[in-house]
């Protein structure tokens, strides 16, 4: 009997979908008929941009015309048509309030195509009269003027939201830890608005249809205690980004992109004769106690693992595992 029921489900579920039992509360860009030119529905800039943005942008859902041309039947189905809930908070003809654009709770349907290498070729020096630079002048030596990725990757504005399950070792990284990544068009359209391809109307130039996914809340970090804006009073960590992220300038896309910071970037200061011996000290502690957890840079999830060979190499020692330690 059970087998009979599953067979019926297997046969009738695809049939039901084929016959039109579609969930109209969910909009997918992957649907064949939704794959036409982006500006069929999204017309940059949207009418309300001056009210909600400092710059011309796509700041709202497409007009009803974009949907009705094909979905007239679903628009007028009953008093509360399910299709309305794609954009509207309430499915009622008398309620026109919409979700914030883009719909905050929905999964992301596009991956971003961004050639770091090409942008690295053309971007920019930090302007000398930037407010942060002025602030620094009063308290510290003049900031170095170097090519900078901070045009797009500014310091994160707020302390990060804790991951599900809380912070490891209760270590909540301060706001100075992470750099932000662009979450809107502000750092794109200032060059790519209308003449520099891919332009605003050519959404597909940057947004590539992908399997729906949820964006990561936090960047993956091996050394969670490293602060981008840290490095003591002199803020020694504020350096040119490519000095540590050595592989960024060769990345032609975001696919498989890794931060790639070699240990040598840290030990230039943190394990230097006559300066500091932060790495060597922890390796010596590990020699004495195989259960020692490295905590100077790492939280315990990383610090209790074997130190990688590169760490020993930089300390001019043969690599060891915890099992080798007496």
């Amino acid at each position: 009997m059970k087998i009979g029921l599953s067979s019926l489900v297997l046969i009738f579920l695809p049939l039901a979908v084929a016959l039109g039992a579609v969930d109209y509360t969910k909009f997918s860009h992957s649907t064949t008929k939704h794959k036409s030119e982006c500006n069929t529905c999204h017309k940059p800039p949207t009418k309300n941009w001056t009210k909600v943005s400092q710059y011309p942008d796509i700041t709202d859902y497409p007009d009803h015309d974009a949907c009705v041309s094909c979905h007239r039947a679903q628009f007028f189905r009953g008093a509360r048509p399910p299709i309305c809930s794609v954009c509207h908070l309430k499915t009622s003809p008398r309620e026109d309030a919409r979700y914030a654009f883009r719909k905050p709770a929905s999964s992301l349907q596009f991956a971003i195509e961004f050639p770091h290498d090409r942008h690295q070729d053309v971007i920019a020096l930090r302007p000398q009269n930037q407010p942060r630079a002025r602030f620094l002048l009063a308290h510290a030596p003049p900031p170095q003027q170097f090519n900078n990725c901070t045009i797009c990757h500014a310091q994160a504005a707020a302390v990060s939201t804790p991951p599900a399950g809380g912070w490891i070792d209760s270590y909540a990284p301060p706001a100075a830890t992470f750099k932000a990544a662009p979450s809107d068009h502000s750092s794109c359209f200032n060059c790519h608005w209308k003449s520099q391809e891919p332009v605003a109307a050519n959404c597909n130039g940057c947004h590539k249809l992908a399997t729906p996914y949820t964006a990561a809340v936090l960047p993956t970090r091996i050394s969670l205690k490293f602060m981008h804006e840290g490095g003591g009073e002199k803020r020694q960590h504020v350096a040119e980004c490519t000095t540590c992220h050595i592989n960024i300038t060769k990345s032609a896309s975001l696919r498989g992109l890794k931060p790639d910071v070699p240990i040598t970037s840290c030990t230039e200061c943190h394990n230097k004769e006559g300066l500091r011996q932060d790495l060597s000290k922890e390796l010596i502690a590990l020699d004495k106690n195989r259960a020692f957890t490295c905590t100077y840079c790492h939280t315990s999830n990383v610090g209790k693992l074997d130190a990688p060979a590169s760490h020993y190499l930089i300390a001019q020692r043969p690599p060891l595992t915890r099992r080798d330690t007496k």
Partner: protein
Amino acid sequence: MTRATRWLIVLITLLIALPLTAGRSQNQTAPARQTGVLRLRARVKLGESNALRGLARKRFFLIHGSLEQNRAVVEAIERQSLVTRDCYYTKNGASAALLNWLKEADCESVYCREIEQDFVRGPKAVPEFATAFAASEKEFGNSPTALKWLSTNLPPNLRDGFYRDRKGVLDALLKQAQASSGAAVQSVMTDRNGTAFFTDLGPGTYVLSNLVPTELGQTLATWNCEVQIKPDDLASEKPYLVSNRKDKLVKCVAVEKPAPLCP
């Protein structure tokens, strides 16, 4: 549970477990891939009076194979006749103020540095920026956006034409280099100190080149040198110094030619 069912479970378990075990033993015996790195340091001297300084924000390329194997590419690199930045912008009607603005930060295009308020109004104003700023103010309705989005109202040739021209030359050379070496060409850009890292390299012989000559004041410098990459780690790899001046530490000296005069 019947005997037949038990046998069936054992059989399925074996079918699943055997390939997994085989895979694991293969992984255990497979030797780790050995890779090497090239820690590049580019230091140049502009003229005779200045000291050596790091060559910032310049791209270098690694072509697989020896100089001999890549002779055709190297010859194509050396043969190319290049239009200098000044000549390109002058030919396209750029003002002296724009030329200076670009030169101040060794910029190839207007995207290289932020356009500040001083350069759209007042004594330091660049005429092209002032015109584009006025158009942007009209279009976007507010000055901050107009300033930040100024480049969207610049003529294409002044905006990034020089960069596009160079990229066209570069792409053609890259295509040729990839065809002749039979491998992807790696590329990195130097930081402000003139340092860059090529990582994850298969051991062997490579040609280190900048493909397109670098403008060093009044000369054009081209590097084409053979490099041996051995399995190594960043931690122990010594810098590979390239320069336009001979020195016992310099591994690769540029061929310098006077920059051609503008037609």
